[in-house]
């Protein structure tokens, strides 16, 4: 069951109805059942994998708690098993794909080779690792309630694509009484609507207006189309993912369980480090807390200087390489991680020569220039994120060979609308700024948004032209 679908909407409405009819002590149980049902609609094997991961980490957490005083390093066995499972499945998935292609080429036939990599696996494995590490660091305690712990991992609004929640924050939420007041209700509805505008209208229009092969078949396009394709990819990815997160946050809010923010207007970042504080925040923060900070602390313990070179280089590099690997066990994703790590290192080095306390507010042109640089670099790095290394090379080679022509301006209009939507909230530093508008204007904007969603949904689901035999 896809999140942005009518079936999912019906599932949520029905779940909400039952949820609020049930007494409080039954609500978690029902959410757990609903979450597993939701996951089974993807595959029962996924649900089985989740159940096994849940039981293992639930039990292992008690061992970690018991052994932590002795510092036996038991926690690392748990971390290694979780991380090893994820990395193993990522590599196995990649290897089977390569093997399948090789077999198909060698024997000129079709081969069915699939490794079970459950949807959302990477997200709940990260939650399990942070859970064990937090217990080892004594900032969390093992959950005594298997039902609550199982719901923490399986909770359907965040199961497929996050946000990655920390157990120490999320478990108490699940154990507390749900209060859906007017503010949470209106905020949740607003999040769903804005999320749909981003996910359906903005990302949808970009997918309808720009050919999807501008990146993969650069030989068929002009250099301007290639750049437009790259820009489109960046804005599409952002609006689709940020919109998706807003939708699931809104849905979760309706159940009285707020989820973490995952995007914070990344196209208005002042530098690259700032970009990663605003893009896929729950993953970035996880990597920061459990890789960057741990490494950095280890280096600074030995040499607390600001100019500690290993500390300048290694933590960002390791963090971004881990991020690349998390996205998939492929060389081009590792390259993407490496590039992002290098950008942060360069920034760290430049910052060494800057004043520790920056001037209060940079001039507008400088902010704009910085934002332009960040977007350009992020999009440049997105080439190996989306394309394999040979494809990336071809893309760059054709960029210098292809002619420069006047581009289609319509996608640029959609991107401007995306920036304007973000700018409105960014300027007021309030993602719920639309709720501050007059009621009539709010209603008019919401009605227009609903109409737009309805139209673009139909555009996206348009039938292709009938081929006459």
């Amino acid at each position: 069951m896809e999140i942005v679908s009518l079936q999912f909407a019906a599932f949520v409405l029905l779940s909400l109805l039952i949820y609020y009819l049930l007494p409080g002590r039954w609500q978690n149980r029902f959410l757990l059942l609903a979450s597993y049902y939701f996951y089974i609609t993807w595959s029962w094997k996924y649900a089985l994998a989740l159940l096994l991961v849940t039981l293992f980490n639930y039990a292992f957490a008690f061992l970690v708690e018991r052994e932590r005083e002795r510092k036996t390093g038991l926690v690392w066995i748990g971390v290694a098993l979780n991380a090893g499972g994820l990395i193993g499945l990522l590599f196995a998935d990649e290897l089977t794909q390569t093997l399948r292609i090789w077999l198909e080429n060698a024997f000129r036939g079709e081969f069915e080779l699939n490794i079970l990599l459950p949807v959302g696996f990477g997200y709940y494995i990260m939650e399990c690792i942070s859970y064990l590490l937090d217990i080892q660091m004594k900032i969390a305690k093992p959950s005594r309630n298997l039902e609550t712990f199982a719901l923490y991992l399986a909770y359907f609004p965040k199961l497929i694509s996050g946000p990655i929640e920390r157990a120490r924050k999320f478990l108490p939420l699940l154990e507390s009484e749900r209060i859906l007041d007017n503010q949470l209700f209106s905020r949740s509805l607003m999040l769903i609507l804005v999320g749909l505008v981003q996910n359906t209208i903005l990302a949808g229009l970009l997918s309808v207006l720009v050919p999807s092969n501008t990146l993969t078949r650069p030989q068929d396009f002009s250099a301007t189309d290639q750049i437009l394709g790259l820009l489109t990819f960046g804005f599409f990815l952002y609006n689709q993912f940020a919109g998706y997160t807003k939708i699931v946050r809104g849905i979760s809010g309706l159940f009285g369980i707020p989820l973490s923010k995952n995007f914070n207007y990344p196209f208005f970042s002042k530098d690259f480090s700032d970009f990663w504080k605003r893009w896929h925040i729950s993953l970035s923060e996880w990597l920061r807390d459990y890789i960057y900070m741990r490494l950095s602390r280890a280096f600074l313990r030995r040499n607390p200087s600001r100019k500690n070179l290993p500390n300048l280089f290694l933590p960002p590099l390791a963090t971004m390489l881990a991020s690349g690997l998390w996205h998939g066990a492929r060389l081009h994703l590792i390259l993407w991680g490496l590039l992002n790590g290098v950008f942060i290192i360069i920034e760290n080095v430049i910052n060494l020569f800057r004043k520790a306390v920056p001037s209060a507010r940079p001039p507008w042109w400088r902010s704009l220039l910085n934002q332009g640089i960040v977007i350009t670099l992020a999009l440049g790095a997105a080439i190996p994120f989306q394309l394999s290394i040979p494809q990336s090379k071809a893309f760059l080679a054709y960029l210098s060979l292809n002619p420069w022509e006047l581009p289609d301006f319509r996608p640029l209009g959609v991107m401007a609308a995306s920036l304007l939507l973000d700018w409105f909230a960014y300027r007021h530093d309030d993602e719920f700024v639309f709720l501050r508008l007059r009621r009539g204007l709010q209603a008019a904007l919401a009605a227009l948004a609903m109409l737009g969603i309805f139209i673009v949904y139909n555009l996206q689901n348009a039938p292709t032209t009938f081929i006459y035999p």
Partner: protein
Amino acid sequence: MGASTLFLLLGLLLEGIFRMPWVQSRLPFQAYGINHIQFEYQLMRLQDFTRRYGAPDCFILGTSQSLRGIDPEILNPALQSSSGEKLTCYNFSIVGVNMSTNLLFAEILVQEYHPRLFIIGTSFLDYTTSRENRYDPRFEESAWVKYKLGHLNLQGWLIEHSYAYRAVLYLSYAAPAFMDFSEVHNEERKWGFQLSEYGYGYSDHAIDLDEPLTEAFINNFLEQFGDFGLSTWNLDSLNAIAELAAENGITLVLVEMPYTSTLVELRGEDGTAHAYSQTLQDFIARANARLEEIARQYHLPFWKAPSHLAYPPDAWHDLYHLNVHGSPLFTRWLAEQLDEALQSGAIELKQANKEK
């Protein structure tokens, strides 16, 4: 709540706008969510026709062969003079569809128009295995078709009743072409015909029949036959149409649509008939035998395409489609067959529906 009310009001406002004749005249066709533009034009023409002349009481069903081969503007006057009563035919043949899809159309037309006569223009080309393999299920899966056949659904209801929703669907047809509407309208140019107000697809393009067939054409054509087995699915669908007609007291006539001898001989560039020509002729004989069997079973006339008609040299759009010079001849012959059958009592038409 306010937003939902405004959304509904906005929807109603758009509905009002799209119902205005000025706006309607600017939309080339009504979109029914299938993206078979000829079908959608055909529906629009049928509605225009009904507004102008009343509901047709006879429909011609089939594919491109009957679409291009039977002109109701010639058939209707001839039928009226012979039967002595007004009989209005409309050509509802749709390019590239299977007999199973024609069954769906027949069911919708029966419910909507209560016709007295169905004429099915068919030929061996409708019963090749490739016709089955190239089946596009979108008619069967269409929300509108389901709605028309009595399966209530919101999208089908919207398509049937909302002009604004049909405009949204029209907009969506440009989506696969990155919202380039010229691509949508290019489709019409690819047909190589225009639709008359009677639904007849006319073109004056003519081929030179003396031209030998290219190897590529022959290979492509033979590919359609697979192992030269008959498509039982399409034959079963024809059976079902016959049953539907019988249940509703509708007279059904099967008529074989003509094709050139060049096609059957598969005369190649060296001037000789292709080795598969005999196999093809056997296939045609088997297909016609099955059609005769169905006709006998349901007591229907099955008229084979006449070989004696002296088509002018410029009568053919291609090897199996007549053009504007060839179709009048064939249509007049069909009118004569119908006339004879009616006069002799071989076929009888049910009483005209007075309510229409």
